């Protein structure tokens, strides 16, 4: 970096993040700027290290499942599916057909919800304020389906190892079909607003180009790889959860710039809607979970008592000593409590 101040030179070194409002504290980018032109960047990563692997070491297989929702909170269902599939692969179990189909419906809905948040905020960052309202409006409908299905909107914990915990609710199929029917015209509306917009094209085309070779070098997959022209989709290449039964295409583009990634993701939303429609048309009947029982090598062990890290009052109420041992005078009974001033409805 050249030694200069912005007063006597046009070059400016600027830190973007980790506290930049649009990076959510996840990334620090050291920018070298010439006015509005970015001459070079240097990325500092590692701000989002949460040690989930270490947490996983101290949990049973089923207990770790809710933590996967928190890895990417806009794609909780997809993360949960990945984890469940991995454990099922380890156990070599086949899950019931109905569970597979419901998983596909929910995962693709989650893809739509995630892409909608991406589209809205992406357009917002470019300067187009309208799409974010429209996208969040449609996302709300998908989140309502999640909430009715499993009781949570973001950190869903929808799937369990071996299938599903919850049977679909009354009207699930109707609501999903209505969502798909409502959603396709809305996608056209977004495309009307953005795809041929001159500012949009001007700010996206030839920006952030990542060629197919670079993608492979860095291990980049998903829409970014497909935008660079590689027709690779795990749902086609190594089908799981019954994806081989559904008819859909892999959208690809050639240039690998931000505009192409935008187009690929928009096409992906259309394909996801197609998959949801097919899956919900043919939801098989039958069980939703396959009992697995205790996993081999996993013994039922006493519940871990909270250690020194637990709050003092919790230890006191639960009758646990400072080092996590259970005290003889096992806790305070009911009655004398009310330690915290409760703000609820007050």
């Amino acid at each position, binding site marked *: 970096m050249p030694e200069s101040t912005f007063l006597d030179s046009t070059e400016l070194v600027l830190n973007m993040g980790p506290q930049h409002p649009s990076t959510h504290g996840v990334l620090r980018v050291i920018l070298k700027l010439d006015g509005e032109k970015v001459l070079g960047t240097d990325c500092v990563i590692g701000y989002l290290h949460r040690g989930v692997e270490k947490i996983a070491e101290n*949990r049973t297989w*089923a*207990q*770790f*499942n*809710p*933590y996967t929702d*928190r890895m990417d909170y806009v794609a909780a269902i997809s993360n949960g599916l990945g984890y469940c599939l991995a454990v099922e692969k380890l156990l070599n179990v086949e899950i019931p057909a109905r569970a597979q189909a419901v998983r596909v419906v929910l995962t693709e809905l989650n893809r739509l919800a995630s892409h909608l948040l991406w589209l809205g905020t992406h357009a917002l960052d470019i300067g187009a304020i*309208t799409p974010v*309202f*429209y996208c*969040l*409006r449609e996302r*709300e409908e998908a989140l*309502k389906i999640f*909430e*009715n*299905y*499993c*009781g*949570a909107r973001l*950190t869903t*914990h929808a799937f369990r190892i071996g299938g599903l*915990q*919850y049977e679909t*609710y009354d009207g699930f199929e109707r609501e999903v079909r209505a969502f798909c029917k409502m959603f396709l015209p809305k996608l056209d*509306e977004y495309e*009307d*607003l953005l795809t041929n917009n001159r500012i949009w094209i001007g700010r996206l085309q030839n920006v952030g180009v990542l060629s197919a070779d670079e993608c492979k070098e860095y291990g980049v997959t998903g829409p970014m790889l497909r935008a660079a022209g590689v027709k690779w989709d795990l749902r086609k290449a190594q089908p799981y959860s019954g994806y081989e039964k559904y008819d859909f295409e892999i959208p690809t583009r050639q240039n690998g710039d931000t505009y192409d990634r935008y187009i690929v993701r928009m096409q992906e939303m259309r394909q996801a809607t197609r998959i949801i429609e097919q899956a919900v048309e043919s939801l098989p009947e039958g069980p939703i979970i396959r009992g697995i029982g205790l996993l081999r090598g996993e013994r*039922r062990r*006493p*519940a*871990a*008592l*909270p250690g020194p890290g*637990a*709050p003092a*009052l*919790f230890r006191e*109420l*639960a*009758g*646990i000593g400072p080092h996590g041992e259970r005290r003889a005078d*096992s*806790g*305070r*009974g*009911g*009655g004398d*409590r*009310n*330690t*915290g*001033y*409760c*703000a*609820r*409805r*007050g």
Partner: protein
Amino acid sequence: MTGERLEEIHLFGKSVTMGKLLRKIFLVDLFTGLKVTFRSQNPKYIYTEQYPAERPKVGERYRGAPRLNINPDNGETLCIACNLCALACPESLIVVGSERNEQTKRKELTTFTYDTSRCMFCGLCEDACPVDALELTQDFELATYTREGQIWDRQTLEEGPKPTPYKC
């Protein structure tokens, strides 16, 4: 001279066609854009909830504040102190205290501690409960003035937390 050339006018050194000029004067593009906006102005498309005044209706399966259910017939707890919820909890924030009743030779629940401040409302405890005693309810307003207020004992779990007016 062709017909097209006739329509062209010179304005601030640029030549524009009559049609383009009229579009600019009457702001046609602006209204085309606003048409999309006004299509969404129908009050039935309002998604904003006026939260404290208007409370959202959460899903039936919503996982919120925990509750320890009581048998409505005799007022006794449904919990059989089997400790399965404590085993299932990923954060080990449930501690079940029990003692053996010498007359009936049964295990009886004495204390139950649930730390909602560390709870992630995954619902594993609820799924583990064999008698549907522990349940995550649709109550979602769990704010307290102190950290300690988040730790619920058996009475709070059975009766629900009671709001205490704020004292300075």
